[in-house]
């Protein structure tokens, strides 16, 4: 049986961290993955010295997309915008601890895509 659904992933998908809307967000981004129909909205507060101070998200979708968003946001909280922009797909795969394979990689990378788009503006 696939280890794609290892306990930590299921836990993040069921009890996502930083879930909800940040009314005071400085950056928001809606991102969708048409094949799975995953959607996420991420909310960030960045500081004047270039730190990601607060993070949150809302969304719906498969375990991989929602767990990846929860885990990635947890890991970027408190880091610098530059560091987040330098993150690559391998970093997300490392966080998830699974190899999503060609069909699920878009689910896994949805939050990274959202972060990169919103922070590179």
């Amino acid at each position, binding site marked *: 049986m*696939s280890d*794609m*659904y290892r306990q930590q992933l299921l836990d993040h998908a069921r009890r996502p961290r930083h879930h909800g809307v940040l009314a005071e967000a400085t950056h928001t981004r809606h991102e969708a993955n*048409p094949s*799975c129909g995953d959607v996420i909205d991420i909310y960030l507060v960045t500081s004047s010295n270039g730190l990601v101070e607060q993070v949150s998200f809302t969304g*719906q*979708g*498969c375990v991989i997309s929602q767990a990846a968003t929860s885990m990635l946001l947890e890991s970027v909280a408190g880091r610098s915008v530059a560091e987040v922009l330098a993150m690559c797909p391998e970093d997300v795969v490392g966080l998830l601890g699974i190899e999503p394979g060609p069909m699920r990689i878009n689910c896994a990378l949805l939050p990274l895509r959202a972060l990169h788009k919103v922070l590179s503006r």
Partner: protein
Amino acid sequence: MDAFVDFKKHFSALHDPAVVYLDSAATTQVPDSVLAAVSSYARGGRGNPYRGLHTFAAKATKLLSSSRATVAAFIGARPEELLFTKGTTEGLNLVARALGSRLCPGDQVVLTIFEHHANLLPWRELARERGFSITYLPMAKNGSVDLELAKKIIGSRTKVVAVTQASNVLGTILPVYELAELAHDVGALVVVDAAQSVARLPVDVHQLGCDALAFGAHKMYGPEGIGAVYISDHLRPQLSPLLYGGGMVDEVLDDTIRYAEDLRLFEAGSPNVAGAVGFAAACEFLQLLGLEHVRQHELELTAKLVRALAELPRVIIHSPAPELGRVGVVSFSIEGVHSHDVAQLLADQGVAIRAGYHCAAPLTRCLDIGGTVRVSFGVYNDLADVDKLIEGVKTVLARFV
């Protein structure tokens, strides 16, 4: 079911008993007879039809023409009514482009909520360009469209009724015959998306009375990259080519171009002969089986599947149509589990199904189901495949619920 006992032996891809392929609405597997026809053409020497006088070119020309006749006959059409395309999508785009670009504000195109994006986006884009309106026939309580409502919607403003014959999500068979009649009563043209129906139901374009009908080979046991569209005599003069290039002209002079007056006008570029040969072989394969047997087989599998799914907790079946009102395509969801997670766990057990929105967003949105798990049968499936799927779903339930 007799005709289909041990039927997997005709499909090399399905020889491994661990493979349970239930995604034929996406693409079917190819029988060895079709593969043999395609390879025998190439082994015997390829040629470019209509171009060249050597043996290979002559043979390719002949094969293209006989393949066209076979595929045309499969849907009750004459060869001069059938265009080869690269698939259903191209056929629908060609027709939509021809018809839609003549429409004006005030005109109406009627679609159904069941349409695949291939029969939706071309019209949506043209509506934006030309300013005509699109009306969707909604899903009625019986899971199909309400003909009384259709009678009210299809009126003097209606110029085109474009409708799928069978839903790729729910399997619902739509009343295309009745809709065609309503359309013709008001002088509208009828376009049919037969991608899902043509390998599952007998289709006769003249009986149907449609003006265009598009389908693709890869969903009917044929090769990828080739399809066909039937174009009625009435519609043909209104079409303009999507592509310009070799093989579509009679004469090119410095100041004038005389285009071919037959179907070659719409098939610019070197034809896909291997595809056409395989397409024809696929039609022959289905004819040999008999579509009435295919249908019987599918009904038996579908009935067993629906019965078994209905017994499982948290499983919601989304195909509200009665048994006889649908083809061998069934969608369901498991409460609290995303369809792609179901698909993944089933894939891990060797069971291939499709999950998600199935390129039919208006329908999945109207049902508010956020993606479905879709099982679709082919001639090679048997009752044991249904058992394996149900076992797989039970594993998903145990894991997630």
